[in-house]
């Protein structure tokens, strides 16, 4: 009897979690893939099998293509600028100061505040008429911007918000990476009369590059899923200029009831995320190897 | 209190044989030390007694009870681990009490037992501290107290002193021996340190590659090694071995003897060959002066040999002879077995002063 329990104990222990995962993650993914090969509008009783038609349709669908383009532009700029700025900030902050704790807290808080609040705060800052940003631009004699109201600037405004939210977190991670570099490396370099730039290129950068790779992939995964800021700030507009992949899925699934299209777009996002995740785990296993 | 009996015990991990056919009886109330080089299977042996590992074949008895299928908690065995394995989230008292609670011992009784053992190991002032706040020696005592409080039949200790510094180790060694004398419980102690084994055990089990090389009291192990391995493992520096082929005297080439051996402390350094059967010219390669004793490393035509002298003037001449009394020579057969003159344990040990 107790031997029975002994053998089944591990299964009992993992069962609750596994049930949740299968029910709410694994099965839905399977269902989404299934739907991507069908045409369905939520209401009609039968789902018509259409093979790859949904994907073919998507490839000619201007709105989808626009959202794909926007997603890539968003990801490229937000991840790129965040990483570079965070690296510079980290190098600048990473010295023992009395304010370190305060800076840490200040820099970090955007990361834990709801994106809803952040989006609203920035909508206010970016208001073309009474927004602080335009007020600031005027102060310095610069031309004002339409920010979210213009198709030319809306996506970049969203990118600005994304950078603002993630830069603090990124900086902290890089600082942690910098602090894990053993000081004796720099001492040895100093004895070898290495210049500051050489020290950075030969010691700092190689030592933190795993951290950077890691961050970049995490940021990529995050920015492919951007939704909240767009839904609140622009709802994809003006003129589709801020429509992204996830927002497209949401709109087509939820507003226009074209589940086949929405699911196909979902499958494409799934593929992108899978590639990034595999890369992430590959790097992780490599890093474990180094230690 | 109980004796422990191994009957044809075998332990394998997949292809690897850790213990091959072990038979031994650990005497009731003895302080038995299991010693051997790393990977010899000594810890596995210990863990099989505790029930933390199950033998692949054979039987293990504690007292009269066959414990093959008895879980660790029910064997009435206590163990002191190398890293103490104290529960870090519990106080010293909590650590000692945990086992008693699991055995549903009444609260008043628990309190009494804890006070008792705390007194014995001198932990009374620390009962409410967390283990992390204690020194290495004090943690060691907590581990001991936790083991003692259960009043086990068998007390198992797995290299308990290896994390202490040299001075403390010395002190704990004698404390453990005294504790054993006080409790009278069977102690099984594992170590890789032959000095610890010799100084603490009243019975030593010497293991190598999963086989018992010899099981005997310390002095017997030193004086009557059963084989080459034992002869070399016990004693510092180890016993000198010389192949008979390299000896000029034909007298050794008898009874299929392959090597002869002698302890460094029995070697005599002289300026003349002398009459001993074993005597060869040598030069001093190196000298370690340790105070009361001096260890010489010698170069001879039969290879490097050690000699150890006690309270004697330093010898630093270039050309010397190393010789050994006939009675102090051990003979080893091809298979490593040690034969005459000490194959009979009844032979008295001759104590003589060197030179």
């Amino acid at each position, binding site marked *: 009897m107790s031997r029975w329990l002994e053998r089944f104990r591990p299964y009992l222990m993992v069962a609750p979690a596994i049930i949740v995962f299968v029910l709410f993650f694994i099965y839905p993914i399977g269902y989404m893939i299934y739907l991507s090969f069908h045409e369905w509008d939520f209401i009609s009783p039968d789902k018509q099998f259409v093979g790859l038609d949904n994907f073919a349709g998507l490839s000619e669908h201007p709105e989808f293509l626009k959202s794909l383009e926007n997603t890539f532009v968003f990801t490229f700029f937000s991840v790129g600028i965040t990483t570079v700025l965070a690296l510079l900030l980290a190098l600048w902050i990473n010295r023992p100061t009395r304010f370190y704790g305060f800076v840490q807290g200040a820099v*970090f808080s955007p990361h*834990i505040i709801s994106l*809803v609040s952040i989006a609203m705060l920035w909508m206010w800052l970016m208001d073309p008429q009474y927004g602080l940003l335009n007020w600031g631009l005027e102060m310095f004699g610069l031309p004002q911007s339409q920010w979210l109201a213009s198709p030319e600037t809306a996506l970049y405004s969203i990118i600005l918000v994304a950078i603002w939210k993630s830069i603090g977190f990124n900086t902290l991670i890089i600082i942690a990476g910098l602090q894990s570099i053993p000081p004796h490396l720099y001492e040895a370099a100093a004895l070898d009369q290495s210049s500051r730039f050489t020290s950075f290129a030969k010691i700092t950068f190689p030592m933190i590059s795993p951290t950077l790779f890691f961050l970049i992939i995490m940021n990529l995964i995050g920015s492919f899923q951007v939704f909240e800021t767009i839904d609140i700030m622009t709802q994809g507009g003006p003129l589709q200029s801020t429509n992204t992949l996830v927002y497209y899925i*949401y709109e087509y699934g939820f507003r226009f009831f074209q589940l086949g299209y929405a699911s196909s777009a979902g499958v494409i996002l799934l593929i992108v995320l899978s590639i990034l995740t595999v890369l992430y785990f590959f790097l992780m296993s490599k890093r474990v190897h180094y230690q | 209190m109980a004796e422990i009996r191994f009957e044809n015990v075998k332990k394998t991990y997949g292809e690897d044989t850790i213990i091959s056919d072990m038979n031994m009886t650990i005497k009731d109330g003895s302080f038995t030390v299991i010693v051997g080089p790393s990977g010899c299977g000594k810890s596995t042996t210990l863990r099989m007694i505790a029930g933390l590992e199950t033998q692949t074949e054979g039987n293990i008895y504690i007292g009269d009870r066959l414990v093959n299928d008895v879980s660790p908690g029910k064997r009435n065995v206590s163990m002191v681990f190398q890293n103490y394995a104290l529960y870090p989230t519990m106080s010293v008292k909590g650590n000692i009490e945990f086992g008693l609670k699991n055995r549903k011992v009444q609260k008043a009784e628990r309190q009494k037992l804890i006070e008792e053992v705390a007194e014995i190991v001198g932990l009374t002032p620390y009962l409410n501290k967390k283990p992390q706040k204690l020194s290495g020696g004090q943690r060691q005592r907590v581990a001991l107290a936790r083991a003692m409080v259960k009043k086990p039949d068998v007390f198992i200790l797995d290299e308990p002193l290896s994390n202490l510094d040299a001075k403390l180790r010395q002190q704990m060694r004698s404390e453990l021996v005294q504790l054993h004398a006080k409790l009278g419980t069977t102690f099984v102690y594992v170590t890789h340190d032959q000095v610890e084994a010799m100084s603490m055990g009243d019975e030593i089990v010497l293991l190598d590659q999963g086989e018992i090389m010899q099981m005997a009291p310390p002095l017997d192990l030193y004086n009557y090694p059963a084989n080459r391995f034992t002869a070399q493992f016990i004693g510092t520096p180890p016993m000198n071995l010389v192949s008979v082929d390299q000896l000029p005297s034909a007298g050794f080439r008898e009874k299929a003897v392959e090597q002869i051996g002698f302890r460094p402390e029995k070697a005599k350094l002289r300026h003349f060959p002398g009459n001993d059967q074993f005597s060869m010219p040598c030069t001093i390669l190196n000298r370690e002066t340790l105070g009361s004793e001096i260890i010489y490393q010698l170069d001879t035509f039969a290879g490097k040999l050690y000699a150890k002298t006690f309270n004697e003037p330093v010898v630093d001449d270039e050309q010397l002879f190393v010789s050994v009394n006939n009675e102090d020579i051990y003979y080893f057969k091809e298979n490593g077995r040690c034969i005459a003159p000490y194959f009979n344990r009844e032979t008295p040990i001759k104590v003589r002063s060197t030179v």
Partner: protein
Amino acid sequence: MAVTSVKSLSETITFPPVWIPETIRFENFTLAWDSGPFLRYFVNSLIVTLSILVLQLFTIVPAAYAFARYRFFADRALFALTMITLMIPTQLIFLPVYLQFSSWGLLDTHLALILPFAANAFAIFMLRQTFKQVPEELLEAARLDQASEWKIMYMIMVPMAKPTIITLLLFSFITHWNDYFWPLVMTTTDASRTLPVGISALTNVEGGVAWHIMMAGNMILVVPILIIFFVAQRHIIRAFVYTGVK
């Protein structure tokens, strides 16, 4: 852009959109509070977030322990399944899950907001790492002390992993308190809406946006998080940094 500190952030959003306010108008809060069923939202948020935390505690600890300490048939496969879950964002699965919930009649209920997050792959992964670091000797000592396996888990392993568990719960709290997407999709009435969704509705007020009221509304959402952050700042930062670096 200069680093925006917490203080300046909270100050910025408290005040009406004037650079320096002439008077500090606390009545904005009451205005915001009265402009919608915020008490309802707040309670919903609390119910949903806390229920998730409690459920996660019951699913994560045993699962992490089993993955860390037992070898069993298909253990690797089940762990792989857990890790796959880690990479699936809710933005991918909301459609099928929505259909599921609608067939069960659970749409627009608290359960629809709670159940999918009753387990957490990331937390299982982290806690498993922590459990693995506990030396085997400690478990053996406990077994010799006649402790049952459940007792070992709750008396020895869980107390040892307490810092990790607290960190993971804080993590979860922040995530689900702030979550906007899931409640947006799964709720249709104020009866089950949570704060982020409720507050976002303030942007759609007819006849122009009342910025001061909107910002005051956001304070209700932000303040609990900031309080938690300042109480457990070191814990939280260490957790986030740890997950990023390791």
